[in-house]
Structure formats: C-alpha cells, structure tokens
C-alpha cells in the first residue's frame, strides 16, 4: 500500500521516546498521588497553589517529569530504531501501576488502612 506522504518509514525512536515518556509521567503521577495521600508533610510540600491543594504540586511535577523524560529519551533515541515491543511492555506496566496508584482503595491497601 502506498502513501502520498511517501518515502521510507521513519525510525521509531522518536515515537518510542514519546510513549515511554508518557508512561514515566503516568507512573510518577501515581507515586506522587500516593505520597501526598500517605504523608501529610509531603502533601504540604506539593501544595504549591493553596485553593487546589496538593493536587497542584502532584500534577505539575508529574507533567514536568513527563516532559523532561520525553525530551531526554528523544535526544537518546531520535533517528534510531529501538526494540519497541519491549518499550511498549514497559510503558504498559508503568501506566498500569500509575493507574492503580491513583485508585483510592488500592492506595488505602498499600497504607494498611
């Protein structure tokens, strides 16, 4: 099947960097959400805008980590082909862990509540 966009298939490194970067951001979001919930002092540290509370810091830091991870991985993998099945597997595990860590009953289970 041809494409008018044509040309050779570009290396998948940039794509892999975007996928893994997002997964790292998702995992960090889950870890920080748990930390803010479990430790009052950590929750206080994340309270960078009082009306929104610790959520402001948790999400801002997670977004920052996501973007930095994406940028770093892009620098490492741009123009290269990487083993994407392995990257996908790792990303899926990170996303699943991140989602679980944001789920309150699972958070409570980890904290022994």
């Amino acid at each position, binding site marked *: *099947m*041809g*494409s*008018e*966009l044509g040309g050779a*298939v*570009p290396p*998948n490194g*940039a*794509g*892999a960097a*975007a*996928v893994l*970067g*997002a997964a790292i*951001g*998702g995992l960090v*979001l*889950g870890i920080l*959400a748990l930390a803010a*919930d479990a430790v009052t002092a950590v929750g206080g540290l994340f309270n960078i*805008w009082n*009306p*929104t*509370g610790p*959520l*402001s810091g*948790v*999400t801002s830091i*997670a*977004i920052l980590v*996501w973007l930095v991870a994406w940028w770093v991985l892009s620098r490492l993998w741009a123009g290269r082909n990487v083993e*994407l*099945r392995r*990257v*996908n597997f790792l*990303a*899926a595990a990170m*996303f699943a862990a*991140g*989602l679980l860590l*944001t*789920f*309150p*009953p699972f*958070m409570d289970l980890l904290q022994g509540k």
Partner: protein
Amino acid sequence: MDITVRDAVTVVHGMFFGAVLLLTVSAAAMGLYATCTPTSHWTLSPAQHRCLSLYLAFVALLAWIAVLLGAYAVYPWYRAHPPAGVTDLSGYPQRLLMSNPSTTAWHDIGMEWKEHVAWFAPISLTVVAFLFARYGHHLYALQSLRRAVFSLVALAFLSACVAGFFGAMLNKYAPVRGGSTMVLMHSQAAHGE
C-alpha cells in the same frame, strides 16, 4: 431561568469540554483506525494528514482545557472549607459529602480518583497527536507503534469516562454552586403572562 457562576463553570467543564472530549476521542479512534491499519485502503494525502493531525491536536487541547478548568476553577470551590460555625454545607460540596456516611465514599473514592486519573487523558492524547503528526500513514507499517497509539487512545477514553462519570455523580449529590447569579432567560410568568 438563572444559573450561578460556579454552576456555569462546572457545566462548561463537564458538559461542554468533558462531553465533547468523549465524542471527539471516539471520532479520533475511528479516524486512526480508518487510515492507519494494514487493512486500510485509505491513502492519506498530505492535506488529509495535516487535517487529521490538527484534529488530534485539537482533541488533546480539549483534554488539557477540561482538566485545567477542573483542577484550577471547579476543584477549589469543591474543596473549600466552611468558616467555623457554618451549619449549612450546601456551598461546600466536599464537606457536605463527608458529613454523611452514606455519601462519604463519593468523595473518598469518586473525587480522590477523578482528580488524578483525569490527567492520563491529556498526556495520552498529546502523545497520540505527536505520533500521528510524526508518522502519519506510516503507522500502518509500524505495528508496535500503532498498538501504542490505539492503547493510548483507549487509556485516554477510559480515564475521561471515569472522570466524567464521577464528575456527574458528585455534582448530583453535592453540586458546586454559588457566586453571583446570571439570568439566562426571563420567565414569562414574571411578566404576568
């Protein structure tokens, strides 16, 4: 017929950006499936690629606006603490939910999950928009990358559904309400008709 400012912003957050997001994510999934799978016979022209790329970027933007409006406009009203001595908690939705054992879980599970899980949608959709803009029709030849794209779309849809469901239920049990009132339409009864 009137509405308070807080009601209006909550409606814009959930019923406009949230609902439109769910619709546009569904359409994005269909568009990607139609153009990027190996069985697809749709050959994208550069103009069509640009158009679908812009559409996916628009979907990601919708998700960002929805979560930012939720976290920085609606959520502060939701979690506001009542001054000492206040017994009418209708202006303090979180406290209202937590004041009754039968509604506490709507906050403890519903809002606590919603406020975090919603952020998976804009992050995933931003990456989807990037991957399509970067690889476009070549995704049909990149099986693993294509699987990642569809998984990210599914993740975004799932997280938006969770956030939307709990947002609707929370607003049913403890509406975010207050602020000045806007009159949308004058009642005919008020004119004696």
